[in-house]
């Protein structure tokens, strides 16, 4: 297998545009030869999938990447035990299409279906049901990991397994993953939409939802300052008791061109947030919706990341522990409102206390806030550094899958197991993120 010439690579935030030598194996037997080719060329390797990591954790500039997306075969599905094993390039959307008609679903899904199984493991993704299901990694039973010195099968309890869950692809190439899947009564969701006026109301609804609603998330209007701070809309849902097992289809509206850089400015942002808030408030109440609209609303707008224009955008997702969550989030929202920056979709959610096995897993019991900011260079960096200070002060941390800029000290402060994790990194693997954070 010959390592191809470098070709363009970019991540979802489109700030970092890199170039990588990309191998795209069709069969698992090609992976070992791909690794050997990279070694012979004197470059490191990183397994990559559908490119939904926002910053630089899915990039390996001027080195090799093994694109897993054609390794998308199911290996076995046991409906009696509720266990699915598949190659790591299978997307969660494609797996849902196989599972749903048979009355099963993935244990948890992130906000997009365009995530590979391997990516879900490497970033230990979470979903709207974190309180019940924990992270994706908490539902993994076994992993086939190709290290530079051979294949190992790892399972909960193994140190290498704990390093690989949330391990950003640095412990080796994830060839296949076995997960526990969940029985569902239908593919519809009974969804409630509840507007709230401030953060205290958000936390009250979150607490009250725990017992009855598996899926919870909220949108907050981060353009609002002063008394309206933390105004937003809470969405919660449970699987509907009946309604059939129709899976989702792959129809989506493409965003055909990149928006011009002036399209997003404090004025349009404010207008969008006011309009979105009004639209959501109109929807307030109960509705029965298909899972795709509940879990993946943005997927119907294929390539929405291009809306942020040619300079791209930064995503910022933090988690703050319970004790400091309310005040910390309030302070961040005040700081963002004052800046006039801030995002279309600021997402606020509570995490439960089901632990993840992952050494570098992002979620912790508490509150998570996710925002995106168009890239305006130094001004954006300054705002994000100010937010960093609030997060550190509050004892929180940032999500590497979303990050493209956090200082090494910030990462170290949030992830006390970092040094231990580093001992499990395969020497043949690396990424832009890893080089930046360990420089």
């Amino acid at each position, binding site marked *: 297998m010959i390592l191809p010439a470098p070709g363009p690579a970019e991540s979802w935030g489109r700030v970092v545009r890199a170039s990588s030598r990309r191998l795209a194996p069709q*069969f*698992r*037997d090609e992976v070992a030869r791909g690794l050997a080719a990279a070694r012979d060329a004197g470059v490191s390797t990183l397994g990559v999938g559908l490119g939904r990591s926002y910053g630089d954790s899915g990039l390996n500039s001027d080195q090799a990447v093994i694109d897993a997306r054609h390794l998308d*075969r*199911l*290996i*076995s599905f046991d409906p009696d035990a509720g266990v*699915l094993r598949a190659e790591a390039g299978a997307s969660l959307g494609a797996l849902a299409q196989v599972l749903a008609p048979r009355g099963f679903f993935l244990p948890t899904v992130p906000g997009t279906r365009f995530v590979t199984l391997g990516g879900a493991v490497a970033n230990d993704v979470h979903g709207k049901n974190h309180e019940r299901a924990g992270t994706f990694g908490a539902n993994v039973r076994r992993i086939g990991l190709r290290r530079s010195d051979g294949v190992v099968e790892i399972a909960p309890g193994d140190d290498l397994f704990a390093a690989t869950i949330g391990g950003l692809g640095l412990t080796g190439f994830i060839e296949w993953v076995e997960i526990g899947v969940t029985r569902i009564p239908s593919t519809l969701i009974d969804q409630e939409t509840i507007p709230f006026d401030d953060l205290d109301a958000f936390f009250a609804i979150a607490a009250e939802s725990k017992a009855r609603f598996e899926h919870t998330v909220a949108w907050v209007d981060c353009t609002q300052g002063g008394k309206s701070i933390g105004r937003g809309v809470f969405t919660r849902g449970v699987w509907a008791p009946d309604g059939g097992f129709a899976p989702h289809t792959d129809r989506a509206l493409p965003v055909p061109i990149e928006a011009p850089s002036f399209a997003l400015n404090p004025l349009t942002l404010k207008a969008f947030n006011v309009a979105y808030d009004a639209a959501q408030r109109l929807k307030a109440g109960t509705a029965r919706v298909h899972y795709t609209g509940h879990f993946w609303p943005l997927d119907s707008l294929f390539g929405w990341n291009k809306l942020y224009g040619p300079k791209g955008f930064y995503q910022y997702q933090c988690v703050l522990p319970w004790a400091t969550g309310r005040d910390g989030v309030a302070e961040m929202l005040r700081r963002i409102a004052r800046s006039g920056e801030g995002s279309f979709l600021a997402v606020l959610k509570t995490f439960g206390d089901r632990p993840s096995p992952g050494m570098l897993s992002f979620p912790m019991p508490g509150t998570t806030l996710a925002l995106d900011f168009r890239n305006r260079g130094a001004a954006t960096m300054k705002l994000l550094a100010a937010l960093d200070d609030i997060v550190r002060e509050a004892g929180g941390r940032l999500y590497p899958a979303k990050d493209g800029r956090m200082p090494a000290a910030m990462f170290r402060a949030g992830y006390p197991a970092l040094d231990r994790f580093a001992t499990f990194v395969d020497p043949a693997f690396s990424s832009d993120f890893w080089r930046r954070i360990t420089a």
Partner: protein
Amino acid sequence: MTTPVALSPRRVVVLGAASAIAEATCRVLAAQGASFALLGRDAARLDAIAADLSARGAAKAVAVAKDLADARDAEAVLAACARDIGPIDTVMIFYGVLGDQAQAEADLAEAARLLQVNFTSAALWALAAAPHVEQAGARGVILAVSSVAGDRGRRSNFIYGAAKGGLALIMQGLAHKFGAKPGGPRAVALKLGFVDTPMTAHVKKGGPLWATPAGVAPVIARALERGGPMVYAPWFWRFVMLAIRVTPQAIFNRVNL
């Protein structure tokens, strides 16, 4: 308004089952509960595909390691497949090799190989498959992947094109033979345009002409059920190739295709 008819699952022999387009097509059929005999060179890869199709709903999927360029034992191999998965009603010929035109012109052994793989062996498999699908009656179908390259001889790839064009004629002839009396099976030549697969890995891609295996798979699955003996996929190639076929030779000579 027609009522959708519940299709009984097909029993499919796939020649060249490890091709990306074959695999994508088989996934569509597996969801309908089809049974498969998967033929190709690499047993381990075929096993991986068989496991996938079974998990997706295939009633049965068996892997048969076989170098398909050698069709001398085609009849015996197909008979063995029928013993494995039951009476065959569907045979799909996907394998092929693109080759390099310049190399094949310089080296006749290479030209012979391209013709043997893409035409001679494929034609023999189709002839050997005919009695099986005739047994299946109107359900029966042989589908072979031809190419838009077979529609007009062009300097960039006419050896591959001639082989694929010849294979299309075999399918057209079988369709004519099967059509002699009502209730007979069908034969389909599938003329594929540019598809992003390992076969075209060396070609610079992008733009509206390129399709994906998952994109053409439903078209192929539909061509098993209905339609004429020549199917273009994606559909617009019918018109692209019409334009190429009717271009006068004097003008054609000046176009680098």
